[in-house]
């Protein structure tokens, strides 16, 4: 193959590579743009303040779904964050041998596990015994999904803290658990917080597990033991319905959801890079 041919192939392949990136970016802007265009004109106050109404009836909103998503995410975080962090601490700060290996392996397995199956699982262990769908079941399902994300990012952040910092604390007579809580974790805080933000953004967008656990609720509900509405389930129901009115609301709500999730991701990224320089 002479040099000229090789040069041409070089040009072609590199251009193709650039094109693939443009394709990827194209899809990002296409999908987001579509949600924006279809949803923006149906964003109004009643969307945020009113309860759902039957299709065709004027007004109506997804207020309870927004609150529902917030409650589900909050409770899921209260469960998932401490446990996820403790798993990471168990892996990095203690020499637990086989148990640590299994914890790390299962964290990997659980990371890209079908969230649908997690929802089905929680259905069997919580919904069936409780004989009702509930916000609690939904939160537990979401916390299981959050667990591996938190554990992994916390583990990586903890590993970045040099041993000398721990030894400095030990040498001052600080017991191990206080060293972990008051020296190591604060040192790793930026990575840990970033991980939490990304995990939260992820579970806010989950639909499938909620269909089997928190189900849906078109009325106000703050109770953990009753079904609760959520933004994702509501959007799903509205979008797959045959009613234009509901479909429009679906896009408007989707716009709200995507905006929140993207802002969370952007904040997490900015926070991570800023703290990295410190």
């Amino acid at each position: 193959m002479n040099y000229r041919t090789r040069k041409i192939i070089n040009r072609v392949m590199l251009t193709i590579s650039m094109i693939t990136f443009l394709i990827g970016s194209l899809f990002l802007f296409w999908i987001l743009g579509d949600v924006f265009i279809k949803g923006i004109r149906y964003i109004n106050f009643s969307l945020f303040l009113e309860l759902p109404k039957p299709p065709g009836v004027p007004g109506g909103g997804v207020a309870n779904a927004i609150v529902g998503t917030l409650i589900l995410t909050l409770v899921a975080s209260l469960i998932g964050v401490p446990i996820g962090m403790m798993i990471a601490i168990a892996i990095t700060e203690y020499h637990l041998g086989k148990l640590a290996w299994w914890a790390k392996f299962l964290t990997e397995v659980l990371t890209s596990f079908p969230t649908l199956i997690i929802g089905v699982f929680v259905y069997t262990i919580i919904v069936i015994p409780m004989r009702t769908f509930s916000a609690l079941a939904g939160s537990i399902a979401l916390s299981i999904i959050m667990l591996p994300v938190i554990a992994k990012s916390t583990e990586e952040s903890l590993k970045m803290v040099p041993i000398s910092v721990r030894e400095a604390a030990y040498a001052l007579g600080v017991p191990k658990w206080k060293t972990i809580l008051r020296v190591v974790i604060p040192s790793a805080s930026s990575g840990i917080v970033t991980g939490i933000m990304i995990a939260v953004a992820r579970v806010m967008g989950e639909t499938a597990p909620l269909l089997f656990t928190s189900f849906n609720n078109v009325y106000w509900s703050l109770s953990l033991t009753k079904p609760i509405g959520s933004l994702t389930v509501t959007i799903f129901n509205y979008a797959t319905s045959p009613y234009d009115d509901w479909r429009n609301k679906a896009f408007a709500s989707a716009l709200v959801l995507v905006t929140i999730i993207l802002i969370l991701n952007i904040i997490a990224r900015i926070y991570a890079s800023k703290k990295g320089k410190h």
Partner: protein
Amino acid sequence: MDKIRVENLNAWFGSMHVLKNINLSIKEKYISAIIGPSGCGKTTLLRCFNRLHELSPGARVEGNIFLGNLNIYGKDVDPVIVRRRIGMVFQRPNLFSNMTIYDNVIAGYILNNKRLSKSEKDEIVERSLRLAGIWEEVKNRLREYPSSLSGGQQQRVCIARALAVQPEVLLMDEPTSALDPISTYRIEETIRELKKEVTIIIVTHNMQQAARVSDETVFMYLGEVIEIGPTAEIFTNPKKKLTEEYITGKFG
């Protein structure tokens, strides 16, 4: 008077026998230097004094070390208590980067949840930084973070931090090896001053530093104590041939 007495101390890293039947005494309010070629076990011995060695995976210790009347390797002795009586300064400054200089100095109290009034804290911080010879340099920068200090300054703050909890013994693991000559000189001055307050044990791979700074010298080789005695004698009239060969640079 003996501050520390080591009896039949043996230590391992996994199956590697790194300290072999160590027996020695450290005199109170003396500066004792431990010297020897790389791998002789001097750092390991130092880390046995504050029970830091056993934290490494696969590490094991057998034997006794007496701090005054207390056998720090006794069955019911909590290593955390030992470490409050025996402090340590490391090879590289390891101040807590997310705490201010002020908070770093009293970290030994804060991290252990000891309640102190502001004036008590101020007093401890000033006293410790003065002892470390760095009070004048940082007294107006106490709310800054360690990253704004030079290496030599950070190491002095580490010394202050270790002194703040008023230990009886201060261990120093090659404290100036990462510093420039001027900082080294100033820290050596500080160490000589500190003799009045604490018993000091310093590990150094720099023989001249040992000769400058210490009252007693321990020479180690391949995990054993070869010779121990007044610094002046070790360096001018060593009793063992091995010591003499090391001192005169025949190996190192």
